[in-house]
């Protein structure tokens, strides 16, 4: 299906002229915003001070994730559905000017008795490693793992987990999952070894493969579960967002339903680094991002996890918390954010970092505001408001 055509920026390097050095086109940050009612692209200027809004794309579609392929800088995949139609994946090879639907979106294998699982929506998209162009991975709701070898045109179930009785048990039921369906997320490929993979399930724990996805095994030691439940039961584990540090792929961070964690491989035991967060804020939340070049630096956006779990900014005073020492201590970063009566929710995919120096941080609220910081959280500015409920924010660097 050809979707709407949207005006987009095309920047080409100028041809070198005789006697003059070639003029390099400055690279710019592109922010990809997926919402409950469509998707938007925000094109930044070189200084990340002004943003040109391109959208909506797929107005009315529920877009759970929008990701640019860093391997070619132009292929975009969007995980989409409408409230009343089945799920699909849209694909653009010209950075959002034209879109085409996947020929075979992620779908579970058909069961002989017709009682097999049904993909409600694709939730997470991860491009494969540079050594495997065209490879993408997708996580779905309910929990399923899929792979495409042709740039997102056709998708197939990947690995044993979709039908493995033990994994299906660990995935729990719809009643065990998040309000809009249990999810497979945080698909991570080790940049040193494409056969080394991780993913998270809400619920169902963190899992690791060292054989290219042929087999996976739980990686949940040290992770806590809701009081009164047995952490030995994988079903009870609810990692919200898992990140691998690009500068040290042996280090992972995790924002969990029950705290903030760090794991330094080869250890298999997560350490709860959220215990050093202020007690009146706590370490509950959905999202987490890591610094692209400093494995000791990471940021979270705490949510209220008390009483009935409002999952809003504690006290109505939003703040990002950052660590510079691997989670031993945290700094409150709220300059520029509302000082009171701001009851924000930020979902697990709705925070991202760019790769600039200094690092830009971005997050989107369920109330449709997009905020960014050009200085690693020291100062925040709202760069878009009045958008639909924001589900995911990603960044890319483009020419």
């Amino acid at each position, binding site marked *: 299906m050809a979707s709407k055509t949207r005006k987009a920026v095309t920047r080409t390097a100028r041809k070198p002229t005789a006697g003059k050095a070639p003029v390099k086109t400055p690279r710019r940050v592109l922010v990809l915003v997926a919402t409950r009612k469509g998707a938007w692209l925000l094109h930044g200027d070189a200084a990340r001070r002004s943003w040109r809004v391109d959208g909506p794309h797929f107005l009315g579609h529920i877009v759970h994730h929008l990701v640019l392929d860093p391997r070619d800088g132009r292929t975009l995949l969007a995980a989409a559905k*409408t409230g*009343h*139609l*089945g799920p699909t994946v849209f694909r653009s090879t010209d950075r959002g000017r034209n879109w085409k639907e996947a020929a075979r979106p992620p779908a579970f294998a*058909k069961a002989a008795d017709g009682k097999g699982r049904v993909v409600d929506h694709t939730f997470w998209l991860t491009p494969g490693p540079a050594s495997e162009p065209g490879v993408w991975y997708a996580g779905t709701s309910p929990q399923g793992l899929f792979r495409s070898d042709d740039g997102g045109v056709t998708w197939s179930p990947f690995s044993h987990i979709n039908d493995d009785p033990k994994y299906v048990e660990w995935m729990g039921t719809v009643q065990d999952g998040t309000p809009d369906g249990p999810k497979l997320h945080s698909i991570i490929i080790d940049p040193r070894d494409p056969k080394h993979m991780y993913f998270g399930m809400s619920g169902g724990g963190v899992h690791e493969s060292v054989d290219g996805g042929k087999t996976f095994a739980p990686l949940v030691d040290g992770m806590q579960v809701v009081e009164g439940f047995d952490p030995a039961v994988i079903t009870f584990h609810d990692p919200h967002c898992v990140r691998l540090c690009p500068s040290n792929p042996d280090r992972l961070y995790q924002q969990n339903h029950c705290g903030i964690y760090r794991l330094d491989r080869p250890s298999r035991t997560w350490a709860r680094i959220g215990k050093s967060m202020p007690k009146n804020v706590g370490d509950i939340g959905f999202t987490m991002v890591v610094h692209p070049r400093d494995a000791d630096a990471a940021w979270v956006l705490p949510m209220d996890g008390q009483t009935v779990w409002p999952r809003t900014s504690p006290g109505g005073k939003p703040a990002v918390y950052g660590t510079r020492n691997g989670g031993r201590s945290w700094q409150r970063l709220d300059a520029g954010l509302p000082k009171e009566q701001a009851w924000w929710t930020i979902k697990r995919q709705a925070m991202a970092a760019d790769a600039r120096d200094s690092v830009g941080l971005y997050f989107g609220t369920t109330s449709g505001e997009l905020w960014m910081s050009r200085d690693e959280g020291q100062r925040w500015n709202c760069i878009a408001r009045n958008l639909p409920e924001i589900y995911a924010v990603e960044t890319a660097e483009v020419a």
Partner: protein
Amino acid sequence: MKVLIPSPLRSYTQRSWVAATGATLGEVLVDLDRQFPGIRFRMVNEQEAIRPHVRFFVNGEALFRLSEALRPDDELLIVQALSGG
């Protein structure tokens, strides 16, 4: 037969009425997918069940099974049961 396409699916067909053939509802949907790739999966899931909120009517009667027989002169209405905000 003539098939009325609801507005959420017209991005596939670019028009409201299309022609399709088949002896059953399932066969007609397969023929629609042949003409408009991807349209069937939006209405029928991977377990061959009609998705919630998608309704089919022929001559004023609702059809609930893909095996329902159709005649060449039937008129199939596909309806999107919209709800929620």
